[in-house]
């Protein structure tokens, strides 16, 4: 069964009288457990597509089914619950809360899931350990390197065992060595069955995935299958 089905999804920004089509009639099906790269030039609509997939943005038209549910028909609480339980986000700019230490950042999705303090604490520490940051739980984001921050963000995205990881240029702000480490984490997550979608400009990042979707001017141009 498909985890994700997009039918003629469009996103059009209205800037006064000018209409900016960021995404045009996107049809897409993604299976559970797939490892996908989204590629395309700057401004082509990659982030727009990711935000729609992650229920952070609502399309102007078209239908989006996630795990069989019509996302367009969900209310605020149901959307929040999907973001909390089904999806883990990893952003180019990490998006950690600067005043909370690494553990507290990882605990956030657990708080919204209603997990009790003690268990939250334990799970956050386990997650940090799994991304190789067991000694950094008490560090504030400003006391971590870029690669470490992104690993905290990944630990946070995994807090509620999501089916789907959405990563928008996760290595964009990192040197190649840290970037490679991040991609290794994604590889092993995918091996354990998590569906992963990564936006990237770089071919060597895209090669980690099974397929690459190429976008141009808001349209899906072609889908390329990688041979491994």
């Amino acid at each position, binding site marked *: 069964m498909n985890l994700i089905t997009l039918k003629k999804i469009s996103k059009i920004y209205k800037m006064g009288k000018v209409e900016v089509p960021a995404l045009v009639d996107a049809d897409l099906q993604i299976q559970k457990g797939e490892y996908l790269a989204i590629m395309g030039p700057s401004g082509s609509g990659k982030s727009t597509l990711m*935000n729609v997939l992650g229920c952070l*943005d609502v399309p102007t038209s078209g239908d989006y089914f996630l795990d069989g549910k019509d996302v367009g028909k969900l209310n605020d609480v149901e959307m929040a619950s999907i973001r909390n*339980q089904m999806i883990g*986000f990893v952003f180019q700019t990490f*998006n950690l809360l600067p005043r909370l230490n690494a553990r507290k950042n990882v605990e956030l*999705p657990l708080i*919204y*899931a*209603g997990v009790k303090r003690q268990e939250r604490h334990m799970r956050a520490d386990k997650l940090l350990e799994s991304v190789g940051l067991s000694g950094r739980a008490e560090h504030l984001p400003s006391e971590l390197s870029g690669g470490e921050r992104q690993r905290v963000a990944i630990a946070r995205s995994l807090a509620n065992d999501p089916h789907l990881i959405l990563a928008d240029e996760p290595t964009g702000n990192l040197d190649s060595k840290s970037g490679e480490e991040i991609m290794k984490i994604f590889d092993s997550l995918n091996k354990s069955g998590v569906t992963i979608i990564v936006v990237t400009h770089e071919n060597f990042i895209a090669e980690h995935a099974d397929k690459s979707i190429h976008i141009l001017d808001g349209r899906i141009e072609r889908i390329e299958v990688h041979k491994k």
Partner: protein
Amino acid sequence: MNDFWEELVQSLGNLKGNKTRSFLTMLGVVVGVMAIIGIISIGEAGKLSIKKDLESFGSNLAAIWADKREDTVYKPLNNYDVEFLRSLPFIKDVSPTLSLYREVRRSDKRLDCPIMGVSPSYFGLNNRHIEKGRFFSSFENNNFRRVCVITEGIKKELFERHGIDDPVGHVVKIGDFPFFVIGVMKKIELQSFLSSFVGEEKEIYVPERTVKTTFGISRINYILFGLKEGVKPTAARKSLTSMFRLRKGRNTYYGMQFVENQINAFSSVMNTVTMIITLIGALSLFVGGVGIMNIMFISVTERTREIGIRKSLGATQVTILRQFLNEAVILSLLGAFAGIAIGSLVTLAVEGVIKWKPYISPGAIVLSVFFSLIIGVVFGIIPAKKASALHPIDALRYE
């Protein structure tokens, strides 16, 4: 999501992260609460002490006197009126009051002072107590005895200055007639500012009948009387007015004064004053609330990205709303507690300086906490709503 403590700890963390701003935000509430605590406490303490003083005069005390208005004639009160009042079922006790000026002498000391002719019930009606000796009796009054009770001022002037500590048993000359001093009255003890009106009394009290026979004066200035327990001043005034019209003629007029009315009038004036001042305090709390709202709006704008991040991690609108509302309420409550603490200290200091009993109004404390809570909610809800309504992606993209 039900983890109230976690929410509280996070809100406190956010407020602590910006201490200066949190403090400035609270300042308005602190000042408002201080005003409420101080003013209500001092107002209530003052009201209580003044009321107590008024009551010490005898709260059921009343007076009636002959008066003249444009369309009436002056017809003085006489002994029959005294007896009539005494016979009324709603009146407890009666004393006529005749006053005159005479020269008072003891050996070579002279003093011009008011002489008060009263009946023995006068002392009880006025709640007066004896310091030395005794008051005069009905027997002495009925038999025109030349005895007198003196006040503190007279005792000082005529006796103490000349080495006599106990005037009882001595003789003073009032006009041309010798009177036995049989008692010295206790001073009136007042705690409120009313004491400055009373001052030192320099009067001599003698039996009213003695005044009539000795000095040939029978004009009653006013009649003091006490109402029985539970009699309403308004009802007493009404029936006395009509009865005196019947007795003295339709074209007469008699003035009346009731202490209970005075107390009530005073209380209602004080209540109005307290209310106005409380209103001013509430107003400054309101201004403090507007301050909280402004700061919360700034805070929401500054933390737009944070709101986006939280929403991307599963925060609902309600969660975000609650987070910001919590912060507003915590700010205003912290402000209230600080205001209560500082306000109480200031109030106690002021009461100490003016030598009142230390008193902090519990009602004012409850009122300020209640007000501040409401202000936190009312002024926090608008910014909190704004925060919660942000679209996740708009909030995340905010620079």
